[in-house]
């Protein structure tokens, strides 16, 4: 059975032709949460940019829902259900909270009732956003912006959700809330690819995980296996021997 998302030998580079990520092989199946771990500069965000079409593949193939999307434009990937929550939340700062959420449903714009229903669902998931619906998104707190970013992505009815460092720049309490939402989405069966520096949090919710270092995958396995592996413990969990 083919995977929902398959990356085969994917390499990508910025302006200089030196690849930032090399020979990435990765699969994601229905109902699965796969975490990609790695430190700063390991190529995590580059991987996501390549996945969403903001960077070209130098080599390799990206297949999604049975179609080859290696050369697709970003908006085409969104139309096919591959939805990214970008790092740093990327609010449309001057637009209201509700307009941000509505634009999340841009690909379904011809189905007004679907948009209205999606909006109601997001407000149910994040009641705080209903209170702030007419405020400019740029004036919200980091945690509230994270809600907008997640809600905006859900408005698109993702087939696969790509999360880029959801813990980035957030207070610990807000990070916990965010991961509670991620866990809930996983339990509802949403396939998620989670890019995260906070390895402990990520391994907590993930089924499987990969470790990226200097643009290559250096370890992979079930979340439980990786939590026990000495390499991951030393590099990313900040502990030498004691079990979690």
């Amino acid at each position, binding site marked *: 059975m083919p995977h929902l998302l398959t990356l085969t030998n994917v390499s990508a580079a910025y302006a200089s032709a030196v690849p930032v990520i090399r020979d990435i092989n990765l699969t994601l199946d229905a109902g699965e949460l796969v975490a990609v771990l790695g430190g700063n500069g390991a190529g995590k965000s580059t991987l996501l940019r390549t996945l*969403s079409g903001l960077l070209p593949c130098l080599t390799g193939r990206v297949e999604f829902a049975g179609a080859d999307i290696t050369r697709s434009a970003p908006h085409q990937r*969104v139309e096919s259900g591959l939805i990214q929550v970008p790092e740093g939340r*990327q609010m449309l700062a*001057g637009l209201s909270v509700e307009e941000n959420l509505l634009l*999340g449903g*841009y690909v379904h714009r011809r189905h007004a009732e679907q948009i209205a229903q999606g909006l109601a669902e997001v407000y149910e998931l994040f009641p705080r956003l209903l209170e702030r619906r007419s405020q400019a998104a740029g004036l919200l707190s980091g945690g509230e912006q994270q809600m907008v970013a997640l809600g905006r992505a859900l408005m698109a009815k993702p087939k696969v959700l790509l999360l880029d460092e959801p813990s980035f720049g957030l207070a610990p309490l807000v990070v916990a809330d965010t991961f509670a939402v991620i866990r809930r989405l996983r339990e509802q069966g949403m396939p998620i690819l989670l890019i995260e520096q906070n390895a402990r949090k990520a391994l907590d919710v993930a089924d499987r995980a990969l470790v990226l270092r200097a643009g290559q995958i250096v370890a992979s396995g079930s979340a439980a296996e990786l939590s026990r592996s000495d390499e991951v413990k030393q590099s990313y969990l900040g502990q030498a021997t004691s079990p979690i």
Partner: protein
Amino acid sequence: MEHLFQVLFTGLSQGGIYALVGIGFSLVNMSTRVLNLAQGSYALIGGFVFLTLASRFGLPAWLAMLIGVALAAILGVLTERIVTLRVRPWRPISHDMAILTTLALVVVCEGTAFLIWGSDTHRGPALQPGVVNVFGAIIIRQSIWMLVATLVISLGLQFLLTHTWLGRAMRACAQNPLTASLLGVNTRRVGAIAFGLSAAIGALAGMLVSPITWLDYQIGGEFMLKGILAYLLGGEMAVAGPLVGGLILGLVENGFLLLPGTVGGLLKQVVPMALLILVLVWRPQGLLVTRRQA
């Protein structure tokens, strides 16, 4: 008193034309971050196509306008295609190159207009010839149409931007094009639509003003300058900025015909520029924008 009213009205209707060209600048700039200098050239081409079809070939005015607007819109979309020919998500637009390309287009349009219509000034047919007498002031009917068109187009665009998906997409591109594309917005198409729409509005401005100021092949540069002035004076608000900027510009230009002994002329050129310098020094964000946006 009649004289005052007459001058004010002339100023407002003239200013409306500047506003329309300025709105073109602002629509394109918000959607693509490109300063499209060819904005005045659409008014040139649109105006000439209109007056040729209507005067020489005897087409009904509405049909001639429709054809001129459509041609200008195509020209606008073409401009976008040329400017973003090599643009990809990972290879962003070079703004220097884009500006120079649109400047080259200004010259191309000017040259084309010279080859086709020569160096004479041409006068376009008025939608409704003649004047009306309002409280003793003589008002040209055409200038009423100019002002009405300005207000209707401004209101329409404001509605488009706040209440339609295209408008929301444009504002998303204005805020953050990368995020817009991650939300599924085809940013290049939105840019092309903005170029086309701006060109169509510019062409309409050229047609409306052609019976009053007359057109020659160099008028594109004039429109461009006045449009940029309107845009900079008002500030970076999609519609309201250039609208208010344009109206003020028109009032200022005509305002001192009220002073005894002045005959416009050189002052009409100098004063708007001086006003722009003052605004740029004391209120660089424009008259309407309250704080500088990050």
